[in-house]
């Protein structure tokens, strides 16, 4: 079975259009992010107390809310998790020790008697830890980008390394944007920015550079073979030649992450969703951002583009080459 064999798309000729698409998604996503408070910070980063309870019988959320208001936890975030018995309670409050969690439990026992519950999970994160994690998260992403930039500069020409890192930046931004939009449109996904999502972003940085490397690897090879050809042609040729493998490699990983999203449980859901989005944007960006960036850099720095031919002529030459080979 073969997919995408002998394709001959003019990817890089249309790169300007895709710049616009990316920019539009990022801007739109960030507007939503800042105006609607989508992707709430998980308590890993915000600090606070969170309880996940499983009640014996169905429980009414508004009853719970009244009970909590009475106990002095006004405005507490309360939601069900899948069934009417599973409830998540969250408050930014946290005191010395873990008194908040105890008080919440006592409050429920007092106000909703006769419906026993089991504490599935109870988390309390102090403000210091939250601040530390936020800082570490930022450092981690920056360090990864810098480390990848350094590594790729050794392996490729510098402009390629920069192109790859620009693509990674793009991936992180556009993934945030898409998640913000998704969270806004489908609040049922219960996405939140927690440590797992951070892990997804970091893994994404590592993984989406894979596609870029595969394409660049071929460009590097083809640039030696077709020395006198137009850079855009060489790049298009390389992207087309590697198209099936970039899509299949991303596809197999997407498949596994999708399984994880469906069956991997609550904890892994944010991770799986983020990473799934990241895989798609990563593949997209390896062509429309990383390679496109290199083309524009080359054009800017005034390098010769070789002989200019129309698209039609180009494709004709390409097919001839194939026949010759």
């Amino acid at each position, binding site marked *: 079975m073969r997919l995408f064999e002998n394709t001959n798309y003019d990817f890089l000729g249309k790169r300007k259009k895709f710049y616009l698409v990316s920019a539009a998604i990022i801007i739109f996503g960030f507007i939503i992010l800042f105006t609607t408070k989508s992707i709430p910070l998980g308590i890993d980063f915000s600090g606070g107390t969170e309880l996940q309870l499983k009640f014996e019988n169905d429980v009414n959320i508004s009853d719970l809310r009244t009970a909590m208001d009475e106990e002095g936890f006004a405005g507490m975030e309360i939601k069900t998790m899948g069934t009417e018995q599973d409830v998540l309670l969250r408050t930014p409050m946290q005191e010395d020790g873990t008194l908040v969690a105890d008080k919440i439990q006592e409050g429920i026992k007092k106000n909703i008697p006769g419906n026993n519950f089991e504490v599935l999970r109870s988390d309390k994160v102090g403000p210091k830890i939250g601040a530390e994690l936020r800082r570490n998260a930022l450092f981690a992403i920056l360090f990864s980008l810098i480390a990848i930039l350094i590594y790729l500069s050794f392996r490729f020409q510098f402009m390629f390394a920069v192109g790859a890192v620009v693509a990674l930046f793009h991936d992180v931004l556009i993934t945030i944007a898409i998640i913000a939009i998704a969270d806004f449109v489908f609040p049922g996904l219960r996405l939140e920015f927690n440590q797992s999502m951070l892990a997804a972003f970091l893994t994404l940085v590592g993984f989406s550079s894979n596609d870029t490397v595969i394409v660049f690897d071929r460009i590097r090879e083809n640039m030696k073979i077709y020395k006198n050809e137009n850079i855009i042609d060489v790049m298009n040729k390389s992207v087309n030649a590697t198209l099936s493998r970039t899509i299949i490699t991303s596809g197999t990983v997407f*498949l596994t992450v999708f399984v994880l999203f469906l069956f991997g449980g609550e904890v892994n859901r944010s991770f799986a969703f983020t990473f799934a989005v990241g895989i798609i944007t990563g593949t997209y960006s390896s062509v429309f951002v990383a390679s496109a960036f290199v083309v524009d850099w080359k054009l800017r720095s005034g390098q010769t583009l070789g002989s200019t031919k129309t698209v039609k002529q180009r494709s004709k030459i390409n097919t001839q080459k194939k026949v010759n080979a």
Partner: protein
Amino acid sequence: MKKNLSRIVITFVLIILSLYFLYPTYQDYQFNKELSKLSGQDSIDFLDKNNQSITSAREKRLKLGLDLKGGMYVVMDVDVVKLLEDMANKKDEQLTVILGEVKEATKNNEEQILEVFKVKLNDKGQSLKSYYGELRDSDADIEAKLSKEIDNSLDRAVEIVRNRVDQYGVAEPQIQKIGNSRIIVELPGVSNPVEVRKLLEGTALLEFKLIYDPASVVKVYEEINKVMVGDTTTSDTDSLTTESEKTPEDKSLTETVKDSVTKEAASNKDSIKDKVKETSITEAKDSLKDKNKDKAKDTTKKSDKTDSSVSDATDTNLADSDSLTDEAAPDSTQLTEEEFKQKYPFFTLVSLNQESGTADGYVKDSDKEKIIRLLNRPDVKAVLPSDIQFAWSNRTFESGGEKIHILYAVKKDPELTGKVITDARSNIDPTSNTPMVSMEMNSEGASDWARITGANINKRIAIVLDNVVYSAPVVRNKITGGNSQIEGMADVQEAKLLEIVLKAGALPAPVKIIEERSIGPSLGEDSIRSGVFSSLAALILVALFMIVYYRFGGTIADVALMINFLLILGIMASLKATLTLPGIAGLILSIGMSVDTNVLIFERIREELGTGKPMRTAVDLGYKRAFSAIIDSHLTSLITGVILYQFGSGPIQGFALTLIFGLIANLFTAIVITHYIFDIMIEKGKKVSFG
């Protein structure tokens, strides 16, 4: 074929190694299945019978993180504000106000609390001197002292926490010191946060307790033994206290036990003697402060004293140890091991070393639980004198390949509590080159101490922290000045630990919980189920895709995929790494990534075949030309994996680990294993295809 042979051998060695490391996990799973079927006495019997193998399987199995097993994860900070309050010479209204402000100001940031405290003090026209140190001390000195005290308090807190967690009886607790003020405690399987919180945040209690008279302890042990054998008829309280009133039968029993126990211990005796050094406590002529100031001058004085006390330690026996060194009854030698076990079950579990003149019991790690259960039995409690209490040693030593604990019998009521200690310091005695610990008490404590030591010369006093014995030195002389020194520690670490413990009595190390996560066991089980299910689903889907898309080549890639999966788990088990829920996510991700390498190679081979090259050349070229892209993509992923491990915490590190192991295993399986399989196939003239 020859060049492939070594690769095949390596592959099989790796597979066998992985299976070997994963076998205990399977074993543990089987034991647990077996155990869940049994209940009550049956399960205890099963545990006793398979003790060794259960423990070893549990130790070597693939570790599951708290999110899968259920349990508590607690991060604690040393409460520096509280510590400053405790250390202050005087506690007035103003100090409370200032400390309250400091607490508020440092709530959300990482600023140095001591710095903030200094500024606040200055604002109020005060200085560190007003509350700490003496008139002649300079501010800088006081500050240095305080900041050292703050640093040290973490060590105390860790020791106190470790001590208590060990007693709480959690399997495989993890206690880590992070940075300068943080402790991470992981308690698998614990589901009572309220209790644990009390345990972790409570104040430590340091006590000095007299070691129970050895002769009486032996008799108590005999009584317990009788209870175990089921013969409780002859026991009356008199036989516990007076030797003369014993029946002849009792007497021979005592001696039999003694002799056999000695025999029993004989194999271990040398090592026990080596490892369990007798410690002693004597009066120190100089206070700690003086000692520090004129260390050089002090050397000669100290050496005289030390020499005498050390020689004392070697040849002094306890006054009432005579009864223990009686000649053995002749018939005792006839007892076989099995008979001994039947007649003296208690002494099979607890061996005494008669030559030491003490009644310290040596208990194998695997028997410790049994002894604890036994000592809590109502019928055993009934035969115990009301003023006896049992306490375990903090440290263990190795003998015959097993950890040995020491069981001490102490007087229930403490002679003195650690609150009277004002300072403690461990040193190396410059003349004898042995470690020692100096201890200082306040005047009130010193007078009590003089009375206690005076009345108990040549007896032992146990230093007990939260009911665990850290040392049990012999009192050599009456200590009147309140300055004591303890000698005979095995090494510097032990002395250092004793210093920490003594200081814990003087100055508690207040800790507060800043992060707490507890996962109920049912959530963990759910997570394991969903983790296993999604792993299998992903594995099957990806494997099917590869077969459909690449036919024969895909099948080979699937073989590599399975080996890869096995290797990752094998590496995890062998390095004792912990599998967490995000770790399972990493594993699933590795499944997807691991076939990618083969996808790159196969696509390249297809390309080469497309240009008309023969299969053999195409395969070789495919592997060769795809290599650079494979290395580059693996390395960039590895870089982010390592960074994630560095910056992530707890479960996320688990993800990073499986990802890293996955990438490494993948390089091997996808490049080496599949390559030689194709090689051999082609060589043998088998039909190879890539769809």
